[in-house]
C-alpha cells in the first residue's frame, strides 16, 4: 500500500489545507518534469493528489493506512431521510427532461420548456440543502482533525462515518447539478 501522504510530503492527518497540498503537489510535479526518467512516478503523484485533495477519499486512505481498512457503516438517519426527498425530485426531473428531449418540434419543445419552469426551483432547493450539508460536514472535519491529534483511536469511528456521509452528499450533489445543467442544455 502506497502512503500518498508521504509520497507528496504532507502531514498524515484528516484536514489539510488546499494551499499546503497544492504547494506540495506542484513542487513534486516540477521536480519530476525536469527528470524524464521519473515519468513512471508521475502516475503515482497524480493519483496521490487526487485522493488527498478530496476529503472523503483522503479520510478513507488515512484510515486504511492507520487501521488496515477504511471502516464502513451506514449513512446517518437524517441523511437517509433527505435521500428520500432527493430521489423523488430526481425522478420527476428525469421524467420531465426525458419527455422534453424526445420532443422533436422546436415550437412544442419551447412551450414544454416554459412549463418546466417549476422544476428549476425544486432542483435548486435540494442543491442548496445538499451544499449546506457539505459545508457542515467540512466544518465538522476541522473539529475531528483536532480530536485526531489528541486521540487517534477514538476518532476512528466518527471519521469513517464522515467519509461515508461526504461521499454520498457529493454524489447526490453532482447528480442534482447535472439535472440543472440538462435543463439549460435542452433550452
Amino acid at each position, binding site marked *: 500500500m502506497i502512503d500518498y501522504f508521504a509520497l507528496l510530503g504532507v502531514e498524515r492527518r484528516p484536514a489539510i489545507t488546499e494551499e499546503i497540498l497544492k504547494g506540495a503537489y*506542484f513542487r513534486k*510535479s516540477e521536480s519530476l518534469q*525536469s527528470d524524464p526518467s521519473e515519468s513512471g512516478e508521475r502516475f503515482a503523484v497524480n493519483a496521490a493528489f487526487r485522493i488527498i485533495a478530496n476529503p472523503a477519499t483522503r479520510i478513507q486512505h488515512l484510515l486504511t493506512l492507520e487501521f488496515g481498512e477504511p471502516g464502513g457503516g451506514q449513512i446517518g438517519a437524517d441523511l437517509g431521510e433527505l435521500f428520500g426527498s432527493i430521489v423523488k425530485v430526481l425522478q420527476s426531473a428525469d421524467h420531465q427532461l426525458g419527455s422534453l428531449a424526445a420532443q422533436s418540434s*422546436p415550437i412544442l419543445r419551447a*412551450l414544454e420548456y416554459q412549463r418546466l419552469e417549476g422544476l428549476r426551483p425544486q432542483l435548486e432547493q435540494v442543491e442548496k440543502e445538499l451544499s449546506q450539508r457539505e459545508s457542515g460536514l467540512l466544518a465538522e472535519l476541522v473539529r475531528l482533525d483536532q480530536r485526531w491529534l489528541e486521540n487517534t483511536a477514538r476518532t476512528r469511528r466518527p471519521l469513517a462515518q464522515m467519509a461515508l456521509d461526504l461521499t454520498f452528499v457529493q454524489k447526490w450533489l453532482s447528480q442534482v447539478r447535472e439535472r440543472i*445543467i440538462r435543463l*439549460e*442544455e435542452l*433550452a
Partner: protein
Amino acid sequence: MSEIVGIDLGTTNSLIGVMDSGFPILIADRDGSRLTPSVVYLPENGDPVVGAPADRMRALMPERTLYSVKRLIGRRPGESEKEDFPFAVRSVNGRMLLEIGDQLLKPEEVSSLLLKKLKADAETSLGHSVDRAVISVPAYFNDLQRQATKSAGELAGFTIERIINEPTAAALAYGLDRLRDRSKIAVYDLGGGTFDISILELNEGVFRVLSTNGNTRLGGDDIDRELVRLLKERIIGRYPELRPELDDRLFFARIREIAHAAKLRLSTEDVVQVEIPFLSGNRSFSYALTRMELEAIARPIIRRTRSHCLRSLDDAKLDPVKLDEVILVGGVTRMPIVRQFCAEVFQRLPNITQNPDEAVAAGATIQAGILSGEVQNVVLLDVTPLSLGIETFGGLMNVIIPRNTTIPCKAGEMFTNAVANQTAMQIVVLQGERELAKDNWELGRFNLEFEPVPKGIARVGVQFEIDADGILHVLARDTRAGREKVVELSSAVDVSDEAVEKMIAESLDHAFEDMSERVWAEAVLKSNELVPAVRSALTLVGDQINSEDQRKIDVLVSEVEAALKSHDSQRLKKANAELDEGTQHLATLLIDRAMNEAARRKK
C-alpha cells in the same frame, strides 16, 4: 537533439511554429502567410494542392476540394447526423472515407497532406529538416480522434512528441508573460468545427487544468450552414422556380462561399449587401443581410456552448465570480454576439488580447519548447476530458477513470473466471459520460485470457493507462501465472457498414408498407399538437417577428390544414416538417422569453 515544432492542425486553418530565444515564432510560407487554410484540392491528374490555392478551388471543384476534414477524423459512421459536404463521404468497414474520383482516402491521410505542407514551410524557413512535432487537438477529442491525429502526423514524417489540448495551449500562450501570477482562467475556444471550454489555474509557473468540456461538432461551420439555408430561402422567395437547382453541389459551394464572406464582415458591419450575380441564366440576386438576422440564426448555435461552460465550472467546483479572466480563442469569438454571450455566462467582460487565430499554435510551440528543455520552470498538468470505463452486465458503463483526472493516470480492475475452466472473457472499453454503454464511444474490445482453473480462482488484473497525450494503453497481468502483456484493442465495427445500412433501409421499406395507416395517424396527431402550439406561440411572442415572417408562418399553417383534409400522409408529414422548420425562430424567441423571466425571478 533537434528542435521540436508546434502545430495547430485546425478545422479551418493550420499553423506551425518554433521556439526562438524563448519565444514562440510562427512560420510564414512562401507567400508570406502564417495561416494555411486546412483545404486540400486533389486534381484528377497531378499532385495534391494544399492551403490557399486549394481554398480558391472550393467553389470551382467542390467535389475534389476537401475542407473541414477534422470533423471526420477518428470518427465512425453513424455516430451522428450526416454532414453536408459537397464531396463524397462514404462508410466502408466501419470507417469514414473520402471518395474523390476513384480514390478512397482516410481523413488522416488528408490531414497528413496538410502537415507535410507545414513541414516543408518550416524546413524552408529554418534551412534544415524538422521531424519532431507537438500537435494540438480539441480538448474534447476522444481517444480515437487523438490516435488518428497522431497517425496523421506520423504519415507526414513526424515523430509526435506530444498531443496537446488546444485551449490548454492557448492558456500557455497567454500565461507565458504572467509566470509569476496566481489566477484562475477560463479559455473559451470556438473554432470552425469544434468548441472547447477549459478552466485552468495558473500558479507560479504551474498550469493546472481543473476541468475541460466541449463539443467536437459545434462551430462556425454550423453558422455557415444555417446562413446558407436562410439565403436559399430568400432566393426561393424571389425565384420559386429555382428550387430544384438550389440543391446542386456546385451551387451549394458557391452560396456557401458568399455566405461565409458576408458572415465575416458582419462581425464589424451592421448590414452587408449579399450579391449573387448570374444566379441562373441572367437572374441575379441581391439581398441586404443584417447583423441582426445573422445573430438570430447564430444565437441557438452559440447557446449550445452554455451547458458545456456550466459543466466545466461545476467540475472545477468554481463559481464564475471566482474566475480572474475569461480568454476568447477561435475565429468565431470575433462575433460581437459571442462576446456578449460570454460576458453573460461568466459575468465579466472577456479578455480578447489573444490573437484568436494564433494563440493555439503559439501554445503548441511553447509546449514543444518545454519538451526540448528550451522553456524552463513551466509545468503543465492537463486532464482527460472523458470518463473511461468498461461495459458491465446489463449494458451499463462502469467508470474506471473519471473525466477531468490529471494525466498521465492509471487505474486497474481485477477479473476472475465466472465458471470453471473458462478461458476467456470479452472486455468492451468505453469512453463518455452516459450511463448506458451503448450511448458512449466504444474504443474497442479485447479478449482477456484465463488459465483453465476452477471457478473464481483466476486472477487477471487489467490496467488502463492514459498517457500524457490523452491516449489509452491497456495492459493485462495474470497474477497467478505472473504473465503480463500489452493488449491490442480491436475495432468494434467489423461488419461492412454498407451491409448494415442496407439491412436497415430494407427493413424500413417493408415496415412502411404495413404502417402507412400508422404514419398517417402519427402525422395527424402531430399536426393537432403543432398548430395550436404555433398559434399560442404567436400570441406570446408574435409581436417580435416581422410581418413577412408572420405571413410565411400563416402559409405553412394553412398548408398543414389543407394536408389534413387530403389524407395524404407524405404531404402531411412534409407540411409538419416545414412548419417545424419555419417556426424555429419563433421557438428561439419563446425560450429567450422563458429565460428572461427566470432570470428576472431570481433577482
